[in-house]
C-alpha cells in the first residue's frame, strides 16, 4: 500500500467557471490520506457536488490541479480514471435492465475479468453489503427496497476494488433507520477494505458521524476544514456554527442514548 504520508488525492486551487462566467467553485485545496473519509458539506448550490464530479472528470476543472495517486488527472483518460474510482450517487443509479448480479459485475466485466472471477467477486461483494446471493442475485432493481438498492450501489462501486470511492448524497434518499444501518455498514466496509472516500452531504449530522475530516463549503469556497471535533470546538465562522447547531442537539441526544 502507499505510504500513509502520501495523499492519495490532492486538490490545489481547483476552480470551475461555467460558460457565461458563473464561478461555481474557486480556490479549493483538499488533501485525502489513504483510508481517510472526507465529507464535503454545505447548502445546496455551494459547489460541493461540482468538486466531487471534477475528481472523476464528470465535470472538467477550469483551474488548479487534481492529483490522484501521484498523477494529474488532466492527463489521464477519463474512462480509465473512473474505473479506478468507485462512484455512488444519489438515488442509486442502478441499471434497471440489469439484475443485481449484472449490476455488480459490470465493472469487473469491463475490466476484462474472466467469468469465474467476476462471479466470485459478485458473491464477495454481496456478502460484504449483506445481501443474500441466492435470494437477490437474479432480482431486478425495481424488486428491491430503497436500502437494498443502495447496498447494491455500494457493491457495484466497490467491485472494481477502487482505492477511492466518491459518494454524492448516497444516503439522503433513505429512511432514517435504513440510513443509520447503512452508514454503520459503510464505515465497517471502509475499515475492512481500506479505501479512501469523499462524500458529499448536505446533512451535517451525517458528516459528523461518518467523516474523519469535514470541509464546509459556501458560495464555491471552502470556509473551514478539520476533524469533526475541531469543527465543534472552534467553528471558524458564524455560518459554520449555524450549520452545527442542529446536529449539536442530535449529537447530545445520541450521546445520551449511548450513555
Amino acid at each position, binding site marked *: 500500500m502507499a505510504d500513509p504520508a502520501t495523499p492519495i488525492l490532492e486538490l490545489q486551487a481547483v476552480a470551475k467557471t461555467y460558460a457565461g462566467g458563473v464561478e461555481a467553485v474557486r480556490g479549493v485545496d483538499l488533501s485525502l490520506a489513504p483510508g481517510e473519509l472526507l465529507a464535503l458539506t454545505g447548502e445546496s448550490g455551494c459547489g460541493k457536488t461540482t468538486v466531487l464530479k471534477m475528481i*472523476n472528470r*464528470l465535470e472538467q476543472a477550469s483551474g488548479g490541479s487534481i492529483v490522484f495517486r501521484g498523477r494529474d488527472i488532466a492527463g489521464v483518460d477519463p*474512462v*480509465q*480514471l*473512473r*474505473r479506478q*474510482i468507485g*462512484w455512488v*450517487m*444519489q*438515488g442509486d*443509479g*442502478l*441499471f*434497471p*435492465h440489469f439484475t443485481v448480479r449484472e449490476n455488480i459485475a*459490470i*465493472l469487473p466485466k*469491463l475490466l476484462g475479468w474472466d467469468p469465474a472471477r467476476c462471479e466470485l467477486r459478485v458473491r464477495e461483494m454481496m456478502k460484504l453489503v449483506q445481501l443474500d446471493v441466492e435470494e437477490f442475485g437474479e432480482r431486478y432493481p425495481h424488486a428491491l427496497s430503497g436500502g437494498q438498492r443502495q447496498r447494491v450501489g455500494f457493491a*457495484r*462501486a466497490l467491485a*472494481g476494488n477502487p482505492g477511492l470511492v*466518491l459518494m454524492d448524497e448516497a444516503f439522503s434518499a433513505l429512511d432514517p433507520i435504513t440510513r443509520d444501518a447503512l452508514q454503520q455498514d459503510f464505515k465497517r466496509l471502509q475499515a475492512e477494505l481500506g479505501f479512501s472516500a469523499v462524500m458529499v452531504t448536505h446533512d451535517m449530522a451525517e458528516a459528523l458521524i461518518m467523516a474523519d475530516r469535514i470541509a464546509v463549503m459556501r458560495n464555491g469556497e471552502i470556509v473551514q476544514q478539520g476533524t469533526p471535533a475541531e469543527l465543534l470546538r472552534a467553528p471558524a465562522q458564524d455560518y459554520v456554527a449555524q450549520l452545527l447547531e442542529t446536529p449539536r442537539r442530535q449529537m447530545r441526544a445520541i450521546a445520551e442514548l449511548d450513555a
Partner: protein
Amino acid sequence: MNANLAERFAELPDLLSGHVLLSVAALVVGMAISLPLGIFAAPRRHLANSVLNIASVIQTIPGLALLALMVPLLGGTIGYAPAFMALMLYSILPILRNTIVGLQGVDRGVIEAARGLGLTDRERLWQVELPLALPVIVAGLRTATVWVVGAATLATPVGAPSLGNYIFAGLQTRNWLSVIFGCLFAAGLAILLDQLIRLMEMAARERQKGLAIRVGSALMIVLMAATLPRFIELPSPAPAQVLAEGEAPARLRAQEGALQGARVRIGAKAFSEQYILADLIETVLEGEGADVERRDNLGSTIVFDALRTNEIDISIDYTGTIWATIMNRPEPIDRYAMFAEMSGWLYEQHGIVTLGRLGFENAYGFAMRADLAGELGARTLGDLAAHAHDLEVGGDAEVFTRSEWISTRDAYGLGAVSTRAMDATFMYDAVRDGQVDLISAYTTDGRIPAYDLVVLDDPLGVLPPYDAVILLSPEAAARAGLADALAPLVGAIDSTDMREANRLVDLERQTPSQAVRWLLSEIGLDEE
C-alpha cells in the same frame, strides 16, 4: 371454390411475394438509415430537431403522391425502384423519431451512473442506452411496419406488383371480392409482422433465448414462404389457365411457338377495358409460346413513360389521349389525320411503333339519363347551356384538367356547371341514381346502354377521337415475330364487341379472362 376466388388465389404467390419483398426491403433499408441517424442525432438537440422536421415533411406527403413522384425523380423508371424508394422514405420517420425520443428519454441518473462507473460512450450506448430505449424504438419499428405494409398496396400504379393489384383492379372492375381479398392479405401481413416484432422485442427484453429462436424462425419461415415464388418456377399454372380448367381453353390458330420463350411485358392502365385488352394480348402471345409479364394498373402517363423507356413492350392507348396529354396539342383534328400524325410523331420522337387501330373508339362523351335529357330537351351539349347553373358533372380526376372538358365547357357555354371528381367506377351509378346530372363517360362502357344513358351530341367536334391503338416500345418493335403475332388483332374489335366485353366485366361480374374468351370467339380468333 368459385372461379373468381380461384383466380385470386392463383395470383397470390406473385403478388404476395412482390408485396413482401418490397415492404421488407424498404423497412430493412429504412431501419439501416434511421437507426444510426437517430443514434447520432439524439444527443445533438439542434440536429435532432432538424432531421425530425425533414422526416415529418416527407411523412406529410400522401403515400400515393410520394410513390408517383418517385417515377419522374428516377428518370421515368417504373416498378420496384420507385416503389422501394418511396416506401423506404416512408419508413424513416417513425423509426427515427422513436430512436431519438427513446434515447433522449433514458433517465439522466442512469446515464450519469454509467459515465461515473467508467463506461466508454460506446459501452454506454450499447449496454445501457439502447437496451433502455429498445421498447420505444421497437414501437417505432412496429408503426413503420404497419404503415409500409399498408402503403405498399399503393405500389400498384407505379408498376410494382403488390397486394394492391387486387384492390386497384377490384375497384375498377367492381370485383369487391378482389378488393376484400387484397385488404385481408395486406392487413393480415401487417398484423403478423407487427406481432412477430413485438414477440422479438419481448424475447430480447426478457432475454428468453428460446422465444427469440422460435420467433426468429417463424419470421424467417413467413418471409421465405412469401418470397419463394419470386425465386423458383412454380409448377402451378398461370392464372388464366387455372380458370380454363373444365372449360375449353382458348387455343390459337397461328403457327405454334413463333415467340417460344420470349419475354414480353404488357402494360395496362387501371380500368376494365385495359385489363381485358391486356388479357387478350397475353392470351394471343402465350399461344405463340411467349413468356408474358403483366404490369397492370399503371397511371395513364406512367404507362407511356414505361413504353418509351422500354420498361414495358406493349400497351394499348387511345389517339386522343396521346394527342392531348403527350403531344400537348389543344385542338382536335379529323380522326384519320390524327391517327396518321400521331403515329409519325411517336416514331420520330420516341421510336414507338403504332401497330394499328384495334377497330373501336373509346372516347370521352358526356352522358346523362335519357329521362333527364328528355326533360331538359337536350340532344346536344349546347342544349345544356340554359341549365348550366343547375347541373353537376361527375368525372374521373383526370378529365377536368384535360382540354376535352375545358374546350367543351368553353365551346358550349357550360362555365356555370359544377364539377365533381370521383373514381370512374362510381360515376355511372352516380348518374343513374341522380347524384350527378352528367358524367364524362367512356363511350365503350357497357353501362351506357344498360343504365339507359344517352351520350349527348358534339356538333362542334370539340371532343377528340379516341381510337384504341396497339403501341410497341422501340425495342419491342425491333423484335421478330411480335408484330406478326399481334397483327390479327388490328381492326378486329368493333365498338359493339368492346362494349359487350366491358359489360360482361362491369355488370355481369365476369373476370377479364372470361370476357376475353367471349371476345376471342366473337372475333373468330379461337380455335376453329
